[in-house]
């Protein structure tokens, strides 16, 4: 077993101590039960219905995924930097880049896989013939691109302040700020000015697709091209923040 795999195993054991993984997996699997009282007929779904369905079915699981990210980054990376544990780990023959990669795999990628897999049994059980896997992939992509921005920012704050609590506050702040800003931006968008709406959708791209599928009314409809390009822009922003956190950890952060 290579040093990286050994370190990854240690990180996963630390982030997913019993019963953390079990509780989150159970809650994520349980969350689509909110569909039970929806009373909708999901025998076959148009794109709009499918997106509405996945928003309802996976919304709560997505929030649980976000809580896992908050926990893993602030109490994983942030807390390790704060308590000097990172210094001890870097005495292993492992580069800073690989250290951060292991932290991201354990802290964000595994929770994302859990978010994709755990709710699937109920999602399929309530719409056995939905067949619209494109909408499911789209919902996963939107969730990933929106949360990548939060992950990148939390990493940077954790590295800058070397405090887990501060990165947690930054992540929570960004999430709620994005939610509130989306609400205000929608208010202006309904009155004809969409600039703020497009800007906030970089942090919260799901609103774009909600508008695209006319769930917010016909006056707020967004074309596929704009929705897709802004979602890609949101993903690129997330990737840029992640790369910045790598560069910062490699070159700037003094341990």
């Amino acid at each position, binding site marked *: 077993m290579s040093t990286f795999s050994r370190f990854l195993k240690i990180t996963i054991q630390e982030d997913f101590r019993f019963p953390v993984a079990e509780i989150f997996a159970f809650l994520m699997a349980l969350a689509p039960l909110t569909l039970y009282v929806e009373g909708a007929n999901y025998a076959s779904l148009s794109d709009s219905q499918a997106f509405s369905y996945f928003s309802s079915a996976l919304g709560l699981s997505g929030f649980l995924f976000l809580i896992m990210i908050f926990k893993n980054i602030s109490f994983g990376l942030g807390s390790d930097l704060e308590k000097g544990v990172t210094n001890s780990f870097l005495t292993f023959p492992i580069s800073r880049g690989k250290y951060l990669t292991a932290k991201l795999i354990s802290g964000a990628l595994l929770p994302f896989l859990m978010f994709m*897999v755990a709710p699937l049994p109920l999602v399929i059980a309530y719409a056995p013939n939905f067949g619209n896997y494109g909408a499911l992939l789209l919902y996963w992509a939107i969730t990933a691109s929106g949360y990548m921005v939060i992950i990148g920012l939390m990493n940077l704050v954790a590295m800058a302040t070397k405090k887990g609590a501060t990165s947690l506050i930054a992540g929570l702040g960004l999430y709620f700020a994005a939610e509130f800003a989306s609400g205000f931006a929608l208010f202006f968008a309904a009155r004809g000015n969409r600039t703020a709406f497009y800007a906030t959708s970089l942090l919260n791209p799901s609103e774009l697709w909600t508008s695209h599928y006319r769930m917010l009314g016909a006056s707020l409809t967004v074309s596929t091209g704009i929705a897709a390009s802004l979602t890609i822009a949101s993903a690129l922003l997330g990737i840029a923040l992640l790369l910045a956190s790598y560069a910062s950890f490699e070159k700037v952060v003094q341990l």
Partner: protein
Amino acid sequence: MSYRYGVLLVLVALPLLLSSQLPVYSVYQVSVSGHFGSANYGPIVLPISANFNRNSVQVSLNLTGLTGNVNLVLYNASEVLYNASGAKVQPGGPIISKTKAELYSNKTFIGGKYYQAITLTKEDGAGNLTAVLYPINGAKGVASIIASYYTLPPSPAALPVSLTIIGIGIVWIAASVLTPRRTKK
């Protein structure tokens, strides 16, 4: 071989098992009636005032107190959703899917009968329903429209699949607990 994978399998399958045991019941139901009298030969309008903010609504028609026949047209606010005399779907706005409209088009509902659950699938979930009944063959008596939506029934496969996954999980836990662990010297 960690017992935790078995626990994960059991916990992920439990909600599926739970869903298969939940009853199907009417979450919301509203009933409106109209009377075709001897002097009333025109259509009657029955506003179903509840906002059915759902993708599908099930509409039943109680004609047990009626002689003669009727045609039914359902509106979502001012838009025609389902026209019994021919599928007529307005462009734009919330609509019933064309497939459903065609399925129930050209249908006459016969007096003295109870028609169960015509499912209307809407393209998006918003709108007040209004029913209009057109009398045919001198319809007389009371006609009622019952609109409702029900809890969602899961796939029939939910029970066997969840039990299989839980079974695999339990076997996994048992195997990992019973497998002797290597001790380091």
